[in-house]
Each structure stands twice: as C-alpha cells, then as structure tokens.
C-alpha cells in the first residue's frame, strides 16, 4: 500500500516536473523578445529600461541557468510574476480560481446527473422511439462546440426571453446558462459511455440472474447495472478534466465570466508566459489530483481492485 502511494507520488511529481519543463520550453520557443512582451510599446521610450528588465528577469543568462533558476523558484512555490499585470502569478490565478471552480463543479454535477438519468432510463430499451430520440439529442449535444451552444443559449434564454442574466458570476441564476453550456456536450458523451456500460452489464449473466430472482427492471438497473456503468464513466475522468478546462475557456469567453479560462486566453494572447506556465502547472496538478481521486473511486466501486 505504502509502496503504491509512493509510486503514485513519484509519478505525480514527474508529471509536474514535465509540465514545468514544457512550459519553460514554450517560453523559450515563443517568437519575439520577452522584454518587448513585458514592456509593450514602451520598450524603448527610455533607454536603460529595456536593459533593466532584461537584467531583472535574467533573460540574458544561458538557458540552462534560467531553467535551473526557474525550477528552483518553483520548488519554493514561487510561480513568478505576470508580465502583463506585474503581480505574482499565484495571486493572478488565485483570484480567478473561484469562479472557474464554481462553474466546473456545477457543470460536473449537472453532467453526471443528466448522464446517469438518461443512461438508466434508456439502456437496454429496444423501443426505437425513446432511444433514438435520446441518442439523437446526445449526439446533437456533443456535436455542439461550447462557444456555439453558449451563444445560442444566450440569444434565446437571455436576450429573447430574458429568463437568465446575460453575464457575470453573481447569484445562482447567472450560473445556469454557463453550466448548461459546459455540461451538455460532456453529458452527451458521458451518457453514451454509461449507457454502453449499462447495456454491457445488463447483458451479463449476473443481470439475468438478478431478474431470475424476481427483481424488477428498475431495480436491476439501479442496484446492479448502474455501478457497472459508472466504471467506464470514471475511466473518462482524464478526458473529463480536459474537457471541463477547454470548455471553461470557451464558456468564460462567451459569457464574459471571470475565471481561469479568461486568464489563460489573455495570457496566451499577451504572451504572458509566467501566467501560462502557472496555468499549465495548475492543470497538471488538477489532473494528478483527479486521477488519484478517480483511482480511489474505482477502488470503492470495484472491490476486485482492492488488494485482499
């Protein structure tokens, strides 16, 4: 057990180190002089400023020295300072983490609920009507790029019908449309995966056995098949995190919500490499945490994976 945990930790550290290195490399591959990026148009208004910035950030040191210094700073938890905002990256990201977490958490809940419901209600059903309709809807949902779905939802429910506020992160009602935008495409894929899992489980001998005991259809689904359907769904967790993040970038942009997505886009557009690096590291951490959690969940659901 301890060895397993240590192994996991080691690979987590390796992933983080890799992420840090990737971001550092990106920094050095980016065309253009970082001093220009930092100074904007003021690059040369006063001589000396440029040199000062270069010295301050160590742009003139050998790459290896810069890399080691960068790693060293990371080890002490220092993510550096945003070029654009001249604030510590930790502050910049920290300020925006809240809204993104709120959005992704609510989207996760909605997506999982919707997927579970549709999967449970439609799995194994042969009636082409219901099943065709739901899988059609699912297909449609997953075919909608987040930016497009969001724009449509806004146009209809906010501008036309005025049911929800157009923007901002104030109150629950402002969260409804962004959540749906983020959740629906994910729910589409999740529902399909879960239904496939459920179909597979329902075809298993144990499901037939359960029916042969006199169990009703719903009971077979809820007590037996659902857990099995969850397993492949959990396998999607990595994909899920990636999609949540990618979706959040879009949703935050379309709904003009504050959050990490906006920060990332701004940073990428503005070549604010320290912030980009911070985001990369954060998402790597999120991935590591989520995969540890899904691992745990897997073990909770599937006793076969627990060591005897």
């Amino acid at each position: 057990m301890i060895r397993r945990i240590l192994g996991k930790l080691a690979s987590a550290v390796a992933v983080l180190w890799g992420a840090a290195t990737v971001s550092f490399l990106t920094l050095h591959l980016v065309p253009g002089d970082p001093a220009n990026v930092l100074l904007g148009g003021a690059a040369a208004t006063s001589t000396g400023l440029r040199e000062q910035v270069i010295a301050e950030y160590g742009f003139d040191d050998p790459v290896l020295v810069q890399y080691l210094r960068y790693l060293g700073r990371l080890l002490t938890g220092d993510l550096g300072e945003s070029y654009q905002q001249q604030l510590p990256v930790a502050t910049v990201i920290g300020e925006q983490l809240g809204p993104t977490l709120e959005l992704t958490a609510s989207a996760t809940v909605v997506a999982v609920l919707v997927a579970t419901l549709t999967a449970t209600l439609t799995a194994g059903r042969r009636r082409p009507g219901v099943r065709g309709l739901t899988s059609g809807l699912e297909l449609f949902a997953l075919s909608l790029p987040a930016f497009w779905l969001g724009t449509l939802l806004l146009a209809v429910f906010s501008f036309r019908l005025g049911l929800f506020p157009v923007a901002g992160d104030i109150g629950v009602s402002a969260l409804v449309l962004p959540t749906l935008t983020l959740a629906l495409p994910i729910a589409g894929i999740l529902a399909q995966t879960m239904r496939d899992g459920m179909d597979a489980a329902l075809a298993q001998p144990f499901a037939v056995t359960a029916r042969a005991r006199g169990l009703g259809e719903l009971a077979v689904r809820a007590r037996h098949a659902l857990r099995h359907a969850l397993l492949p769904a959990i396998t999607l967790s990595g994909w899920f995190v990636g999609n949540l993040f990618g979706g959040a970038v879009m949703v935050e942009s379309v709904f003009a919500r504050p959050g990490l997505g906006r920060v990332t886009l701004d940073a990428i557009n503005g070549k604010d490499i320290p912030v980009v690096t911070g985001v990369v590291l954060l998402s790597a951490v999120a991935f590591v945490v989520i995969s540890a959690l899904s691992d745990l969940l897997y073990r909770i659901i599937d006793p076969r994976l627990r060591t005897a």
Partner: protein
Amino acid sequence: MTSGPASKLLAGPPLPADPVLLDVDGLDVRFGRGRREVHAVRGISLRVRRGECLAIVGESGSGKTATARALVGLAGPGARVTAARLDLDGQDLRRLGERQWRRTRGRRIGFVFQDALVSLDPLRRVGDEVAEPLLVHRRVTPRAAPGRVRELLAEVGVPDPDLRARQHPHQLSGGLRQRALIASAMAADPDLLIADEPTTALDVTIQAQVLDLLHAMRHRGMALLLISHDLAVVARLADRIAVMRDGEIVESGPTAEVLGAARHAYTRSLIAAVPARTPPPPRPPATGTPILTCAALVKGYAAPGGERIDAVQDVGLALRPGETLGVVGESGAGKSTLARLILGLAEPDAGEVRFAGRPWSGLPEPARRPRRRDLGVIHQDPLSSFDPRFTVERVIGEALGAIGTPARRRRPATVDLLEQVGLGAEHLGCRPLRLSGGQRQRVAIARALATRPRVLLCDEPVSALDVSVQARVLDLLTELRDRLGLAMLFITHDLAVVRQVCDRVLVMKDGRVVESGPVGTVFEAPAQPYTKALLAAIPRW
C-alpha cells in the same frame, strides 16, 4: 451397459405418483429475423414432476440454455417464444404479465445460470446477492435477512458463512461461488430449480461436490431441471434424461434406459465420447535417451500484493521419443507455466531445460530459433492462437515459411497437412473465426505438424471442446503419435483424458510434482491423497 455404484447411490427414488409440476408442450424459441433467424428450440415437450430430476443433455448450441431461459420468461431480447402449453403447477406461464412473472421468478422457479463464475454481481457482497430473492419476495424482514443468508450458505455447505457473506464474489473460489448461487436460487424456496451447466466452469473435485449438493437439495422435495452437455455428469443425478440436438429432443426416458440402451445414434455418440471408460492397453515403456529434460525448474511471479507466487517449484521431468507424458493438476497448479518454461517463452528462475541433448533454457532467442522447428505446440484455445486476420492457408503457410519452405511449395504442403488432420483444401480460404471448434483445433495441430517436430507440447488441447469433438481430437493425436513417433507432453486438468492417451503421468499441485509414474500405477494405486481426490472426482457411471 452397467450402472456404476455411484449412480445407484445417488439416483433418487422414482415417484411416479407425484403430480406434474412443469408441463411444456411445443416450445419454440427463435432469435433474430429474416435470413439471420436462428431457430434455437423447435417444438420440444418436457414434463417435470414434483421432486423429480430431469436432465437435458446435448452438445453445445443444441438449445439447452434457450429452453431453460424460456421457462423463466428470460429468453432474452429479440427472442420469440411460443408454446402449445407452458404450465407451472397448473398455471399458464404464457399469460403472465411482467408483475406476475416477477412473483414467479425466484419464488416459484429458482434459476442457476450457466457461467457460475460471472453470475454473481462482482461489485456486490455475496450476502447481498443471496439475500436479494428473500427481500424481493418479502420472505424475511431486512433485519432478519443476514441471519437467513447465513443459514442458507451453511445449508449449501459454504464454510464460515459469516465471512463469506461479507466478501465479494472474486474472493470466493469457483465452487464457493456456485454454492452461493445455488443458495441464492433456493433462498425463496422455489418448487423448481433449474440448473444450467452448474459444473462446467469448475475443477473436477469441486464439480463432484456441487453435484452432491444438488442431489441433497432434491431430498427437500424440490424438482430439478439439470442441464449439461456431459452425460457422465448427469448420470449420477437424473431420474430421467432428455437428449437435445439442434433444438429438438431426439431421445428421452429414464436414466438407466437411455444410458443402457440408447436408441438414437447421437445419444450413442455422446456416450462413446465419455473418456476413460475403457482404458487402452498399456504400451511398452519407452526407452532411449530423453529428448526433453527439465531439472529442478523454479519459476515465481510477483503477485499484486507484493509477495511472490511460486508457480513452478522444483519440477523435473524427462520425455523420451515416442512417449506421451501427462501433466495433470487443478487450475493454478502451474501446468501452463511449466509449458511456457519448456517453450522458452519464459525463463526459469532456477533449474534447466535441455532439449535434444543440448541446453535450451537461458539461450538468447536467435540461438533457439533454428531449433524451434523440433518443438511443436498446440495451445489450449486454438482460436486465440491464430491471427484473427489470417486465413487457414496463411496460418499454416507461416509455419512452413519458418522452416524455409519456398513460397510456391507451401500450398501443396498445406493441403497435405490439412488432409493429415482430416480437413481439406476447401478450408484453405477460411478464417479461423468461421471454423468450428474441432476444425480449429485440427488446424492448430496441422500447424504444429508443419515444422515436422520431434516433440509436441499440448497445453490443454481439448478442454475448450465439446465432449464429442474432444474424443475425435484425442483419437487424432494418438494416431499421429503412433504414426510419426512423436514424443508428446500432454498438459490437462482432466485425469480421464490422461488415462486415455498417456504412458506416464505427473500430478502437480501448487507448483510441485506430488506424484508421478506410469498411468496404470497412478490410477490404480494412487499414493497421495490429492491424487486420490482427483481420481474420485472423475465422473463416471
């Protein structure tokens, strides 16, 4: 034909006066539609009385499972079931609505499905699975359920039922799982218990225990519908036997009658397929220098928990030209690991394999490659030993290519080989998936022979086959051995098979050789209790 002593002991007393419990007439089951329609069951009639045991036997795909499932209304999606009569205790099952079916299943008909190993929900505790029919049919209150579950598990002979109820299916052995399933099927005290192949997945020793258990159940007045492809298995239990083939019942009657004086040719072929009823005369012991020797082989694997499993411990053997050596032992005994060591697919941790008088284990693969042609292998599961994209011609052609047969001479050589194993040129273009099990195994044998080996290693070559097909393949192997003078190493868990084909036998348990010697000696006078148990479990009548 004489009934063995075991069957005298076990067969229940015929109770002709008992009323008919299950009355089926003209049962028809079809799957699919149009050109793809499968007519699985074709108008069969069955009758089971209270307390009686009826066995349905027949080869794989004959429609046994389809029949059984139709009886509980679970023939499956896409199945169309019709019947002239389908009565349980006077009630017409054809008219049942979904709710009434639910009240019938589990409560009136208990069902133990084929595939005991996967018929318990792997994600739930064994106790919950056993309790399910109790709770669904409100036989006990939820509070009282655990107590009743424990009683049930104890009744079916599960030791330490408290612990087992709290465990998950994967923590139970196959035999225990099958017992738990039976306990669950019996929990709500049904009138009829349907057991579909209750022993196929099990080791011989455990198989005997489960059959004993089912026999004991019958004494509680429960009627039993037993389904199997193995005549020897049902002979011990059934009052009456119905023989199915291609969806029809070709013969039925009291057990002794069917076994003793089978009228239908198919029944007779089934009976003939039961091995080891008449052991072949012992052949003179082989002499000469062993072509294959293993000395003090040890192989361990790292188990998930961090400990090591010694799959093979201190195993030694010698195989001489023209000799057949059997290796037996139950699942996990280390037989396949031994085979892999001999094949050079795994390297021993200690010990040595010598082949044709020269070292074999521990060599780099390129050094072994030219000598591999002398060591043929037949795998347990022929299908997975073929590249799914290859035709029969390519499968065998590859083997021929490996010994340098030029491309243009491969086709006639392939046809030659196919003919040797009883197949023809018409099979050249087939993909393995489209061949029957017996044909696949023949292709596998043809491939093994393609390199003209001196030693043939067979790892469970017949365990995946139907009894009747199994008999034909065994005949083929012995015939080839005699004709080509091959040395054979025959790995199996089936002692009856060993008895039929081997000269000497090696009994393995937990990676060690517990007993070895000429077949006759070991079978007639086993020295070890483990061997005795194995022998006692061989089904026979």
